[in-house]
């Protein structure tokens, strides 16, 4: 009993300081950025070719194309300055919409359409009653672009 308790104690402290340490370490190495913008990823040239990357921005208004009879979609991720065409097949989250934020994950192949394996929607910090939709869309675009800087 006594030995079990001590073991449990040591394990817990290891987990606590391990996770704290890992968090602080990754913050110094810069990998705490959850995703890159199209501008950043295009600037890497071929150095990230074949690597799994996350690319985030806004689903450009008017760019979303659904292939009839399948779950295949195409759209453009924009960060205001640069655009990146994306292809994806599968279910999309509720908040995945034109003019809203998105994070796409997949292998980076420079010069080709980005083949996303996973699509996550990114919500802006705006909460707006449904009666004010038009104003909401304009404001969330503004805050999303600000958070991409």
């Amino acid at each position, binding site marked *: 009993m006594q030995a079990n308790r001590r073991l449990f*104690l040591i394990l817990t402290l290891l987990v606590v300081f391990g996770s704290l340490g890992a968090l602080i370490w990754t913050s110094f190495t810069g990998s705490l950025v959850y995703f890159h913008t199209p501008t950043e990823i295009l600037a890497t040239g071929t150095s990230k070719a074949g690597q799994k990357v996350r690319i985030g921005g806004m689903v450009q208004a008017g760019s979303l194309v659904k292939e009839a009879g399948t779950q295949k979609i195409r759209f453009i991720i924009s960060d205001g300055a640069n655009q990146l065409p994306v292809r994806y097949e599968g279910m999309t989250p509720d908040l995945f919409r034109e003019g809203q934020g998105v994070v796409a994950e997949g292998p980076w192949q420079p010069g080709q359409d980005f083949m996303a394996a996973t699509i996550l929607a990114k919500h802006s910090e705006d909460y707006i009653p449904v009666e004010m939709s038009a104003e909401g869309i304009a404001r969330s675009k503004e805050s999303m672009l600000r958070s991409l800087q």
Partner: protein
Amino acid sequence: MKRLFALNRWLGWLTLSLLAAALWLVFTAPLDYQQGNSVRILYMHVPSAKMALFVYIALTVFSAWHLWKKSETADILAEASAPVGAAFALVTLVSGSIWGKPMWGTWWAWDARLTSMLVLLILYMGIIALRNGIDDPIKGGRATAILAIFGAIDLPIIHFSVSWWRTLHQPPSFGQASTGSTITGPLLPPLVWMSVAFIFLGTYLVILKAREIRGRRILENLETERTSHA
């Protein structure tokens, strides 16, 4: 402390009425223009997150006070804070997950905000485990206080994570835009009321737990006295 315990019954009733009023506002608030009804999860998620941090601030103050003045009251309040804070942190993570699955498309993401909040929950559990793992209550109280004070480094990390690093979690809704808050019109009052109700709820729970701990310590002291006489 006894007077505090007597007042706590009234604090409980006040908390209950505040919660009822706040919940009425939560369920009569309009739909969000993007999230629809899911926006109501916010009213549980944000107040719990705030309380998980507030309770930890209180825990750090009690710990410092205990180390400095060797105050039994501070030690009891520190011991009482840990499980309450852990509960708030757990509610934050679970409610966030329930919102994240339909909205983001995932239960979990290892971004800076979510990870640092998980670290807070683990810290709370480590603090509870450390106290229970040391047989001598005086040593246990002191070791726990030291761990709690070191752990406070996670608080600014959680708070600023969404401003320092690009996260999947949305940036703060307050104090960033020139407009004040990005939560608009009738969507804001339920959050304010829920936050106030949760501050009362947290205080009530800590005092309630402190009463139980104090009673248990008195009982344990009597038991040791009795066995030493026999």
